[in-house]
């Protein structure tokens, strides 16, 4: 899994994102830091924001191609 593929999945899921960043933390294609700032998250508890991101990447998390996922999310208001 490369950062660009993750980015593509996330921007598809959060088309209105004000900020969307994916960093390959270790350069090995399996440890990622993702940051999503989107109006989709306005008024939603943090845990549900993270669930939305996890859901987008569910397949890669389940098959182990993403070994570690660090998530930072925020609404826009």
């Amino acid at each position, binding site marked *: 899994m490369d950062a660009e593929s993750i980015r593509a999945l996330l921007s598809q899921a959060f088309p209105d994102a004000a900020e969307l960043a994916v960093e390959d933390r270790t350069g090995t294609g399996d440890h990622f830091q993702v940051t999503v700032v989107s109006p989709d998250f306005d008024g939603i508890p*943090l*845990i549900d924001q*993270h*669930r939305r991101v*996890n859901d987008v990447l569910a397949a890669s*998390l389940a098959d182990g191609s993403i070994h*570690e996922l*660090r*998530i*930072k999310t925020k609404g826009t208001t």
Partner: protein
Amino acid sequence: MKTLNEQISEVIQQEPVAVFMKGTPQMVMCGNSHRALQALHAAGAPITAVDILPDPRIRQELSEISGWPTIPQVFVKGELIGGADITEELLASGELQQKLDESLGSDRDQEVKVVQLELA
């Protein structure tokens, strides 16, 4: 013997703060589990840790129960708080301490213990 699913559910429901992690607080095997533990310590939480590494089924069953794909997973009074990132964020914002105060009282004990699941 209780099923793995029953044992995991019991820990989640019965322990004030349950942490499913890689390794134990005495020997942490993952940076993210370490981050979650540090945040809980800083917030003055009691900790009941379950090591998910002895058997892959532990993690499978846990994720089925919680709907959360990654490790660690932190529960307060049966409710999933999140993983390491959320636990750290809630510590920084003061919400973690507030949640612990509300759920467990401010003069809570801060015992750290480990629960071993019975594997068939």
